[in-house]
């Protein structure tokens, strides 16, 4: 994927660029708002990682507003030290697709950026989701793995749906809290781990191969074993 990083802090930018390249992405970098806007408007990217406070007269919010004003719908993730609720709301209102507060874990950033690009592509009116032999029918709200029907609680269903929509990608605990429960804060208790483990009991335990994997220091990933 082609990702644009607009970030003025050299260390943070270097760290993000290196990480994204290691994850197999092509990355462009701008260290001020003006260059960032020029790059974003003149070239095609799959996603933009955007700092809010930028030198060069154009800050992140204005950059994004200008971009959206030109009908450019490239998914944008804000990466900002402004972490108050109002700041997040402002960022999303300006047309941002996600908001991550500094300091951040790279795994979280990577997972969110990859989730963004996926969201951009496959927003078709899917009625069925499939990962390996696990199938989900969104209309009848039924799940089966191979020939076996699996009974899920409503919340478990939504959790699995989220994981299936992001199959093959790392999904962090915070993403699950936001995406499935709509909570924008981290409880101290490992609530997500417990719910994942329950889901695992139902979709993996009775079967020979596991689909739901734990990714160390990052989160979870739903994928079929065969590549």
């Amino acid at each position, binding site marked *: 994927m082609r990702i644009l990083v607009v970030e003025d802090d050299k260390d943070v930018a270097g760290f993000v660029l290196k990480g994204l390249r290691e994850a197999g992405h092509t990355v462009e970098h701008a260290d001020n708002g003006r260059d960032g806007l020029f790059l974003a408007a003149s070239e095609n990217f799959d996603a933009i990682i955007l700092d809010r406070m930028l030198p060069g007269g154009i800050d992140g919010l204005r950059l994004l507003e200008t971009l959206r004003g030109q009908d450019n719908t490239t998914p944008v993730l804000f990466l900002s030290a402004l972490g108050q609720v109002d700041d997040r709301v402002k960022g999303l209102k300006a047309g941002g697709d996600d908001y991550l507060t500094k*300091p951040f874990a790279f795994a979280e950033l990577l997972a969110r950026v990859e989730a963004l690009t996926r969201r951009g592509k496959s927003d078709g009116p899917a009625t069925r989701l499939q990962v390996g032999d696990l199938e989900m029918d969104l209309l009848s709200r039924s799940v089966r793995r191979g020939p076996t029907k699996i009974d899920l609680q409503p*919340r478990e269903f939504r959790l699995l749906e989220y994981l299936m929509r992001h199959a093959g990608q790392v999904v962090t605990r915070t993403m699950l809290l936001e995406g499935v*429960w709509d*909570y924008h804060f981290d*409880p*101290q*208790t490992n609530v997500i781990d*417990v*719910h994942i483990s329950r889901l695992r009991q139902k979709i993996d335990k009775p079967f020979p191969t596991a689909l739901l994997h734990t990714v160390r220091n990052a989160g979870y990933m739903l994928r079929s074993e065969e590549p």
Partner: protein
Amino acid sequence: MAKSSVERVRRQRPARRGLWRSAGVRFALVYAVVFGLSAFVLALALWYSALNLLQRQVQASIHADFQTLIEHDQMGGLPSLEAAIQERLAGSLTPDGIYLLKGQNGQVLMGNLDQWPAGMSQDNAWYQLSVRRQGVASIALLQMQKMPDGSSLLVGRDVRMRTKLRNVLRAGLIWALGLMIALGILGAVLIRSLFQRTIRDISITTGAIARGDITRRVPVTGVGDEFDELAVTINDMLDRIARLMDGVRQVSNAIAHDLRTPVTRARARLEDAALHARSAEEMQAAIDRATEDLDGIVAVFEALLRISEIEAGARRAAFASLDLAPVLLDLDELYRAVAEEREITLETEIDAPLMVFGDRELMQQAVVNLLDNALKFSPPGSSIRFSARLAHGAVQIVVADRGPGIAEADRKRATERFFRAEAARSTAGSGLGLSLVSAVAQLHNGTLHLQDNEPGLRAVICLPADISPD
């Protein structure tokens, strides 16, 4: 820096201000001038109208005299007139009366003036002239009239006494004016000293506070006047500032203590790894744990910022009418699995609907903190009671556990930032959870009560219910 700012304050406030720059003197002078002017105008009006009245009385009597004498002349001719004048000159009816009759060719026929006053030639006009009355100099108000036979008659009144009276009155007025000025100055001095005394108290107190002694207060006299009101208001303000400063001091002390520990730990781990790690795995493990420590510090920072954001009240703008019942049931569902995992029973009883006017996300977070706490301190096999109901116009959310609870003495302090009871020292946590719950409750005009669950802790959030008109 500090010295120069002190100097700047001094320069703005000269130690000895001029008399004219004193507010007390200005107020007193304005008062004296207004008072003196009105008194003076009143006296002047009295003086003028009194003199005017006298003048008109004299004129009226002269006029009446004239009429009578002219009637005598018309009825009985010159002899009758002369007799009437003679009668007046001799009689004591009008001791101030002045009469003079002049013949056709200017000779004085009779009268009590030595000679016809110079410059008096107009009929029916008023003259006030110096005259000689039987050899005595005097001042007189006079009127003359030509008679049909060519002679001229002069009638007047000696007004020497009246002029004297006027002079006495004028002197009195001037004295009174002088006295008023003296009294005004005295009043100004008095009011100024009164002002100074009252303001000096405030000035001394605020000066002491500016130099760093926040414990000083403005003395209240107990009279209950405006100055007392001002003193009470200032003292209230100082109390509030002192409380805020205490809070800030507490938080900065707490930050110094509670953040230094994890920072020290992370630093030690990294340094230790740099010096002693013998394998890549050991190095990796040390870095991972230091990163975790840093994440912990960030979490504390975020919680602190969140609490101050809530306490600043900025989020009230996003308040809306909302039903807490589904919000709480969602939380119950989220935590039920965790409780079961730890062999803890979650006894939930949520009434519906529970309408409040508030912020959904903050309410979620507050209840999450209570549930986190309850789960953290509950022993396996025990139960947590999670209930919410509407009672007496208030929504009451209760989270009660069977853990160690909080000692009575600590309960009041439990919502202070970074406070951790002895029993909680050994468990993980920042000591900010209950501070946030309390801040959220206060933002919603509600309260957080911590009670003894015998054993355990019973946390109760009370919020005013939102009773919509429909």
